[in-house]
């Protein structure tokens, strides 16, 4: 499979070089190289390997390392004695001659067992049929492309189809031209079938094989198609295709949910944009179209390829003669444009769009004004909540106060990184340096009081509250002394562990 991959890659590289450095024939060579796709067994290895399913690459029998060592002895098949070699393999005669121990090479044992184990169970028939189907589908693509290129009827039909497609996308512009030069008419249906078979088979391969590359190719093809032609599918088509591709690429359900949410947001945004985007006035559009057309007519007349067609009862038809491909000037009967009538201007949709637009602008202004104050509002709300929570310290129920005080102390310790984490609080002792003498004993005492308050129905006395207040004071003092200014800032504003007026209150208590 390695040689196949190399072959494959080298052909692709060759084709790309020809395209860049050669002329038009290079593009055909690129397409010819696609012929090689079905020659490589597509579904088993390499780019088309399915994501799930057993890996059936057979082991190649690895010969023992000794055989491939470059520094082995030349004479016959002996090598110097290595620890681990068997004593009965020693070639005594040669060793006596050479003066060092030499060991006979061992013939490589054919690993029959391994081979039979992995070359394995024959594939189930369903799997074999599926692979054959996939190879057939993949073979359809280059065949269809070849037909389109070489058969003149199909070629003509394809070009006509592309021209029609292009017209349809450019219909709102007055400036229409034929994308591809085509002589005469031809049957459209065979070309349409051939053209549809390419993405169709790619889609079928993507769905059947469970591999991700065809989905990628499909999406890349759609994007390149749009870019090359200069036309654009509507936004929702592109977003939908992108979503399908991502769904195919992502495997785990949480990712998919996230992607679906993202897509929903994108769709809503595109809808809003479509509604709110300052649309253009139709009459302004028509006027600019008129101007553009006049300019092109002037340019054509200067170039000498312009020819007025006789005017009928319809507004003047303008004929464009230049096609954008090979550069040959051919006279063409183009489609005309008609100016927008006054009635069409008065579509009420524009009024709604205006209203919504001004509302959106108002909201945006308000949001921008409020934005700088948001951090302060948020901090204030948190501070109030924290202060309210700490009201409990003074509550009549000593048990509640004791619990709250101890938990606040633990919050302090955790915030400074020397806290108990997920251990039971009474079974932990503060081990950091910097804590004053007697702090661990006080902590243990308070932890026991906390447990009593939290887990039993006993009522505690005032002295319990005083002990806890003492612990809190000492903790705050030690940790504030230890912490740098940055940590103090975080403690005050992010964790809301202390405020200025609270400190005053407590010291006056």
């Amino acid at each position: 499979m390695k040689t196949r991959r190399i072959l494959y890659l080298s052909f692709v590289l060759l084709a790309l070089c020809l395209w860049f450095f050669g002329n038009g024939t290079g593009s055909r060579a690129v397409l010819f190289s696609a012929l090689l796709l079905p020659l490589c067994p597509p579904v088993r290895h390499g780019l088309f390997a399915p994501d799930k399913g057993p890996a059936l690459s057979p082991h190649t029998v690895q010969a023992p390392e000794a055989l491939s060592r470059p520094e082995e002895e030349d004479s016959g098949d002996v090598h110097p004695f290595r620890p681990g070699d068997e004593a009965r393999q020693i070639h005594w005669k040669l060793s006596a001659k050479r003066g060092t121990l030499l060991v006979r090479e061992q013939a490589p044992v054919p690993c029959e067992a391994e081979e039979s184990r992995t070359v394995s169970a024959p594939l189930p028939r369903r799997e074999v049929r599926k692979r054959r189907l996939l190879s057939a589908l993949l073979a359809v693509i280059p065949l269809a492309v070849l037909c389109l290129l070489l058969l003149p009827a199909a070629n003509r039909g394809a070009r006509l189809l592309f021209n029609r497609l292009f017209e349809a996308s450019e219909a709102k512009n007055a400036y229409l031209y034929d994308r591809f030069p085509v002589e005469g008419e031809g049957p459209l249906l065979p070309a349409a079938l051939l053209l549809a078979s390419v993405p169709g088979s790619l889609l079928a391969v993507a769905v059947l094989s469970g591999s991700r590359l065809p989905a990628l190719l499909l999406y890349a093809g759609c994007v390149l198609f749009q870019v090359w032609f200069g036309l654009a599918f509507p936004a929702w088509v592109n977003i939908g295709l992108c979503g399908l591709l991502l769904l195919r690429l992502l495997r785990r359900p949480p990712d998919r949910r996230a992607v679906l949410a993202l897509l929903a947001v994108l769709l809503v945004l595109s809808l809003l944009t479509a509604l709110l985007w300052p649309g253009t006035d139709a009459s302004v559009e028509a006027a600019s179209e008129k101007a553009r057309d006049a300019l092109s007519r002037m340019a054509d007349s200067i170039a000498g390829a312009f020819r007025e067609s006789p005017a009928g009862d319809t507004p003047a038809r303008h004929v464009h003669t230049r096609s954008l491909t090979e550069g040959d000037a051919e006279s063409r009967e183009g489609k005309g444009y008609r100016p927008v009538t006054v009635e069409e201007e008065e579509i009420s949709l524009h009024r709604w769009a205006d209203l919504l637009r001004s509302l959106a602008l108002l909201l945006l202004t308000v949001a921008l004004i409020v934005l700088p104050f948001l951090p302060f509002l948020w901090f204030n709300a948190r501070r109030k909540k924290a202060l309210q929570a700490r009201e409990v310290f003074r509550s009549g129920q000593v048990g509640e106060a004791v619990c709250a005080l101890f938990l606040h102390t633990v919050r302090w310790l955790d915030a400074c990184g020397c806290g108990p984490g997920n251990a039971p609080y009474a079974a932990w002792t503060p081990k950091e340096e910097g804590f004053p003498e007697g702090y661990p004993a006080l902590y243990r005492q308070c932890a026991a009081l906390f447990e009593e308050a939290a887990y039993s129905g006993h009522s505690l006395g005032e002295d319990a509250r005083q002990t806890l207040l003492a612990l809190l004071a000492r903790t705050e003092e030690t940790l504030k002394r230890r912490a740098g200014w940055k940590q103090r800032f975080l403690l005050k504003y992010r964790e809301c562990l202390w405020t200025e007026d609270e400190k005053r209150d407590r010291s006056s208590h």
Partner: protein
Amino acid sequence: MRPELEKVINEIEKAVAGKRDVIEKILTALLAGGHILLDDVPGVGKTTLAVALSRAVGLVFRRVQFTPDVLPSDLVGFSMYDPAGNAFRYRPGALLHAHLVLGDEINRASSKTQSALLEAMEERQVTVDGTTYPLETPFLVIATQNSVGAAGTQMLPYAQMDRFLLRLSLGYPDYRAQMDLLRARQGADPLQEVECVLAREALLGMQQSVLRVTSRDAILDYITRLAMASRTAEGVEVGISPRGALFLDRAAKARAWMDGRDYVTGRDVQAVFTDVCAHRLVLKEGAPGTAEEVLSSLLGSVETPDRRLRNGGFLKK
């Protein structure tokens, strides 16, 4: 540790030195009213420990050596026809009239005998020929299982191991302990020096007190979360059953009471967790690690009730 229990432990330590934690756990099981499974190599002092305990607490001790031909009737008793009285008379079995029963090598007994023992353990009474005979109170069974030489035996299935409160292991003593052991046996048999320091009625009173120890919602929530986490832990096929959770609660209560408190805390649950739950886990085949490792990782990962309180849960009752 309550002083009366300290005395008991010190007495037992005269006979079995250096195994203080095992003695504490056995006392926990005794107070909680559960039974013990001793999984051990032979000759480490299981019988000595059981005898010492029975002497220290004034309980009647009986030892049953299980062999493959022990019948259930040997345990629960049977009715024998008495021609003189012209009626059937009940002859009590090994389980009757004993407080502390040491069942040696339960894995050598037949399945029928094993289930007879386990049923009696569960119900604390035996029924023979329609008549029910209650077992003594307090009733403690210490069953031993020998992992060595287990060929041809019926290792206790997991469903039956679930019925034991604790699984303990004595293990070999270290150098000092072995030296002390040999030195102690140079003179009189130390087992004779163990005296009764706790009356049986006092023990019954203690068991009642243990039942009255309170477990708040926060602790019950912790136990439930531990049990549920064990069922979905990786590498675990079968986790802690609801019976296991109940036993965990009881053992934690006993532990808390032994510590001198009448309320259970997270510390108590963590202290008894491994011993109560290690034999209830069934690990998946090929899963790395032992049950103890899985349990200790659970202890680290499941939120303790203290931390839950800190994060705002269970603040009111």
